[in-house]
């Protein structure tokens, strides 16, 4: 039975907060199992990943069907599973996309990325799937994978990674991929102009990250924007530069969930401070560019925030969708200009959002 309708739901986010804004939402699809990312197809419709391990095609009329693909090492439990689907810049001609997911077993897993081709027309399937990146070392536990991705202007791919939670000190060591952002070519090679090509992990682009959940390339400013989860407090918005150290866990605004200090320092020499930080944590998960502003969705914070750049400082311009009372997993601005938001639940929704102002 078709579980959703293309119905217009006006949600007036008119809370008493001074920054509360008004947005209109339209449900494009529902009953998605913990949707994690969405990509709009040029021929119409959307690809949606579900963390539990399904790749779903949502047609322009809201019909859904699962796309066949072959990821035999997919590990899906807790925070682990299928993460981001990102179309190649030349998707229209190449039909290529990349998928990030957690690969391995309970005792040995990490973030992997495959490149594949989407068949030409529905019912879609993924063809020629090939691994282009495996984060090393494989580690225990099912937490903090990062897994957001973005293409840079030169055609290389940035992949955000997590620290695996219990391996936080590894984020400061450049001989592994834990707590890093890596940059690779479409074939999975480390570009020669990466900053640590002499190390055992030449793919590293920046380090000192905890769990990156938002990553986007801003072509107009030639800048890379990123956000990551702090522990209890200390969620950060950063501008990523090649070779930069972003501090985790030696400098942070957050403290451990137990109340203990992770580090006595909020900043240290050689560490790039956040441009904006959320304390208490809102758990940002999703980052998009909209008319030069940043859109950030939040899980714990259950809202969409719009940040604008004023005098080189990101400032909160407005807050939206709080009336949904839903954990928001991701936000995208599709090539068509549509703002797409995913809610995070076993009955997740794909929403189209438009600002009233």
């Amino acid at each position, binding site marked *: 039975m078709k579980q959703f309708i293309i119905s217009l739901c006006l949600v007036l986010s008119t809370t008493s907060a001074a920054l509360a804004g008004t947005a209109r939402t339209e449900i494009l699809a529902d009953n998605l199992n913990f949707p994690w990312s969405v990509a709009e197809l040029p021929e119409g419709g959307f690809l949606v990943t579900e963390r539990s391990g399904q790749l779903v095609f949502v047609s322009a009329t809201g019909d859904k069907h699962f796309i066949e693909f072959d990821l035999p090492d997919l590990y899906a439990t*807790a925070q682990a599973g299928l993460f981001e689907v990102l179309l190649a810049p030349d998707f229209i001609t190449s039909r290529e996309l990349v998928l990030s997911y957690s690969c391995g077993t309970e005792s040995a897993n990490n973030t992997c990325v495959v490149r594949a081709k989407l068949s030409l027309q529905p019912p879609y399937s993924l063809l020629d799937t090939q691994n282009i990146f495996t984060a090393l070392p494989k580690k*225990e*536990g099912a*937490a903090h994978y990062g897994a957001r991705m973005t293409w840079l202007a030169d055609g290389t791919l940035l992949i955000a990674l997590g620290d695996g*939670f*219990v391996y*936080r*000190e590894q984020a*400061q060591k450049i001989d592994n991929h834990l707590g890093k952002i890596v940059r690779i070519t479409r074939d999975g090679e480390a570009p020669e102009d990466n900053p640590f090509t002499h190390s055992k992990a030449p793919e590293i682009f920046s380090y000192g990250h905890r769990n990156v959940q938002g990553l986007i390339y801003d072509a107009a400013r030639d800048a890379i924007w990123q956000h990551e989860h702090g522990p209890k407090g200390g969620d950060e918005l950063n501008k990523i530069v090649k070779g930069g150290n972003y501090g985790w*866990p*030696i400098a942070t605004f957050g*403290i*451990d*969930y*137990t*109340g*203990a*200090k*992770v*580090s*006595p*320092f909020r900043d*240290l020499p050689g560490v790039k401070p956040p441009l904006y930080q959320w304390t208490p944590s809102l758990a940002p998960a999703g980052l998009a560019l909209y008319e030069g502003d940043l859109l950030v969705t939040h899980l714990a914070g259950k809202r969409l925030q719009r940040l604008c750049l004023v005098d080189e400082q990101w400032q909160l311009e407005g807050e939206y969708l709080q009336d949904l009372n839903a954990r928001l997993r991701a936000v995208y601005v599709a090539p068509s200009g549509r703002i797409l938001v995913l809610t995070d639940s076993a009955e997740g929704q794909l929403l189209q959002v438009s600002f009233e102002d």
Partner: protein
Amino acid sequence: MVRMFIAFLCAVIGAALVGTVIQTQFNLAELTALSVDIDMSTRMATILHDLLHFGPVFALILTPTLLIAFIVARVLSHFMPRLERAWFVVGGGVGLACAFMVVDSLAPMPTLIAANRTLLGFLLMSATGAFAGWIFDRLWHPQPQELAEELPQ
């Protein structure tokens, strides 16, 4: 009964204080291993912060754990009264080790207390439960020679 309550309170507080200082040292040691310099005033400020913020959380874990552990130790010492002190010490230590494992299996993160990520840290943090067992039995059922030490001359 009052003596038992006071002894239990002292055991929880004593273990929470010692455990907090231990976990702080483990956390700071990880940072110094990354070449971060931490001077003594910063170290002391961190201990103070953790005593105020981590200490109560640790006490929350200790309280039900020691309650169960000490009841078991009391039952065992009923059958082997000469080993009473040992039962409370072992009971507190084993009980806290089990509590850490239960908490880690229930919490969303793999290891709730960072110091427990290493075997040495886990053993030392668990040992604070044994310390609590010693405090409790020492105050609740002091041995004759301990009692004699407390009598006025």
